[in-house]
C-alpha cells in the first residue's frame, strides 16, 4: 500500500488472508479523513479482505467521512461480483 497523495492509497495486488490484518491496520490509521482506494493493482481479493473493506465503508459512513474506490481492476470487479457485491458497497453513499 502506498500513499499516492493525501487521501489516496493504492491497494496491494494480493488481498488474501495474510493481507487482511495489515490492510485493516492501515485503514484504521487513516480513519476520519476522506479516503480514496485505488484498486487498479488488485489481482486477488479474498473474503476476509472484502470484510475489511466493507467494515471500512461502514466505519467511514459512521464517521461522516467519504470513502471511495477508484479504477477497480477486472479481478477486483470479478471478486466483488462473485461475492454478490458491487463497487458501490465498498464506498460511503452520500448521494
Amino acid at each position: 500500500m502506498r500513499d499516492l497523495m493525501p487521501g489516496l492509497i493504492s491497494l496491494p495486488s494480493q488481498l488474501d488472508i495474510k493481507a487482511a490484518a495489515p490492510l485493516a491496520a492501515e485503514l484504521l490509521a487513516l480513519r476520519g479523513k476522506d479516503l480514496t482506494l485505488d484498486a487498479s493493482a488488485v489481482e486477488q481479493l479474498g473474503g476476509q479482505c472484502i470484510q475489511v473493506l466493507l467494515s471500512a465503508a461502514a466505519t467511514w459512513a459512521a464517521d461522516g467521512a467519504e470513502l471511495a474506490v477508484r479504477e477497480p481492476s477486472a479481478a477486483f470487479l470479478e471478486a466483488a461480483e462473485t461475492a454478490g457485491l458491487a463497487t458501490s458497497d465498498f464506498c460511503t453513499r452520500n448521494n
Partner: protein
Amino acid sequence: MDTMAAIKQTFFQECEEQLAELESGLLTIEREEGDAETINAVFRAVHSIKGGAGAFGLDELVRFAHTFETTLDGMRSGKVETAPQIVRLMLRAADTLADLVRVSRDGGTVDAARVSQIGDELAQAGGAQPAPAAPVFEPIAMSGDQQTDDFGFAPVMISFDDLVGGTQADGGQNGFAISFKPKPELYAKANDAIRLLRELRRMGEAKIRCDFSEIPLLSELDPEGAYLSWHVRLSTSGGDAAVREVFEFVEFDCDLSIEAQGLGGTDASLAVEALLVEAGIKESAPAPAEIPALAPVPRQTSATPPQLAAVAPPTASQGAPAQGAQQPSATIRVDLDRVDRLIDLVGELVINQSMLAQRVMEAGIARLSDVAVGLDDLEHLTREIQDSVMAIRAQPVRPIFQRMSRVVREVADMTGKSVRLITDGENCEVDKTVIERLADPLTHMIRNAVDHGLEKPDDRVKAGKPEQGVVRMTAAHRSGRVVIEVADDGAGINRARVRDIAVRKELIDADAQLSDAEIDDLIFAPGFSTASTISDVSGRGVGMDVVRRSIQALGGRITISSRPGQGTTFTLSLPLTLAVLDGMVVTVAGQTLVVPLTAIVETLQPKAADIHSLGEKARVVAIRGSFIPLIDIGSELGYRDSEADPLQSVAVLVETENQSQSALLVDGIIGQQQVVIKSLETNYGQVFGVAAATILGDGRVAVILDIDAVVAGTGRDHANRKRNAA
C-alpha cells in the same frame, strides 16, 4: 514408451526398494533393535506399494497390501505386539507381497491358497475381527498418447444420480437454494468463500446475495474473523452431489444448507423474472447486492459432467509445461546403454592412450621430457576417468544380500532348522552385471549352507552348540577385487563321505591319495552331489560345479575351506568390473597373450635339472619339492607344432580355481598391464583356452587366456582325478 508405462516401470522399481526396506525393517525388529521409526518405515513401505498398486488396478496386490498394512498399523499403534511369531509372520507376509509384486510385473501365478492363508493369519494377528475388505480401485485411464487429449478430458464415468434428471434430453435445470456462512477456520485453512462462490457460478446461473449486516466497525473487526454470509440461488444442470462437492472440503468450517428447488425444471422465480424483463416491465439491472452472474458457463452440450467444464484446457499461451518442471532429486536415472557406451569409449581412450605412450617411447623421446611427463599426466587422468565411469555401474551388494535372508528363511522352514543370517559389508560395491549374475550362485550356496552345512537342532545340541545355526555372509573389497564369504557354523565337510561318493561316482580312483583340501574341492566336481537324496531344497538339478562355472564366467574364483565340527566357508573372489583386467602380457610363438594376473603365483626360469618327463609327452617341473605339470601354451593352442624348449622359456606358475598349480611355458614376458576386455564370443563364439581379447598399446590384438580351460584341457589338472570328458 508412453507416460503410464514409464510410471509403471518406476512403480516396480520402487516396489523392489520398498520390499527391501520392508524386509530389513522387519529383520531389525526381529533382532529387537527396532524403534518406532522402524515400524513406521515398514508401514510406509507397504502403504506405498498399496498406493501405487491401486493406481494401476493391481487388485490382488492392493488387497493383500491392505491387510498387511492394517496389521502393521496395529503394530504401530501398539495394539499388535511385536512378538517373535508375529514378526516371523510378517516376514512371510513380506515374501508373499514380493511374490505378488513379481507376478504383477512379470505375469505368472501365485499360490492363491498361501496368499489367502497368510492374509488370514495377518488379519487374525491384527485383531479379532477380520480385516476390512480393501477398496478395489478402478485403474485410471490415463492417456499416454501424446496426440490425444490431456488428462482433463479423459472420459469419467459419472453416475446419472449425480445429474438428478438434468439430462440434456429434456434440457432440465435443477434449482438450489444455498445458504453459506464461513467460519474463521475456513479462511485459516487457506480456503476462501469467494473461490467457492466462483465454483458455484461455474456450475450454472447463480444469483448471489451477500449478507454483511454482521460486519462491525473497523476498530472492532478481527481481520481474520468471519462475518459474511451468502445466499445463493443456483440453476444448474448438475445435481445435488455436484453442488455438495463444491463445499466438500469446508463442510465443517462453515454453516451450510443446500436445498433443492423445483427438480427437473427451471426455477420458477427465475423464469418469471426473465419473462418480466423480456416484457420490459422490470428493469434488467440487478437489485442492489443481488446480481446475477454475468458470465455463466454455457450449458453443457454433452454428457460431460459440469464440474469438468471448469477444467481449463492447456493452451499454447500457458507455455510448455515441461519448462516448469523442477527435479530436486540428487540422482538421475540413465539408460544403461548410455553408460555402457561411455564405458566402451573410455576403453578406447585407454587403449589409445597406451598406444600413444608406446609410440612416444619408440620415437626415443626422453623419459623426463615435457611430452613424456604430459603423457604420464594423461595416463593418470585416463585411469581416473575409467575408474569414475566404472563407478557408475557399481552398485552395493545390499539387494542381493537382502534377498538371501528370504532364502535362509524358506530353507530353514522346509528343513526344520533354526537359522540366523548375519550379513556384513552390504555397502560393498560391485559392477551391476556381476551383482545380477551373483544371485543364482549365492542362492545356491546359501541353500547348501542351511541344508547341508548346518546340523539339525538336536544334533547341534548334542555337539554342544546352540540350537540356532548361524550363516554368515560378508562382502569386502580386497586388493581390487570383491571377496564374498558364505560361512556356516555347521559340522564341516564329512570328508570320508565325500571321498566315498567321489569313488562311487568314479570321479576319483579308489586308491587316490588326496589332501583334505583336495577332498573338499571334490564337491565342485561335475556330477557330485553330497545329498543322499535330492531334497526339495538344494534340488533344482544344479550342483556346486554349476556355481563354480558361473563364478568363473564372471572372472571370479570360488574356494572352500572346512573344519570338522566348526563349519564350512565358501570364498568368492570377484573382479569389481567386467570391463578391465590386470594382466601379464607374454609372447608365445610370435603371438601376444594376456595371462590374468589373479591366476599368477610367480614366474621363473626353469633349470634343466628341474624338468622331468612323465610318460610320452607329459613333463613336470620341480618347484620347492613339488612336481608341477608343465603346459606348453604354444602347442596347446596350436601356435606351433614343435615343443618349446623349457630352458629357452619362461615358466608362469598359475593356480586354478581348485588350487592346483601348473606352469605355463611362454617365450617371454612383456610386462604387466591393465587391459580392456573385448568379448570374443560375440564375434567368434567360444574359442578353446581363450577368455576374451584386448587391444594392446601397439594396436595389436591379444587374446586373454582362460587359465582354467587351458589347464583342464591338457588333462594335467589333477593327476589323481579321472578326466571328465564332458
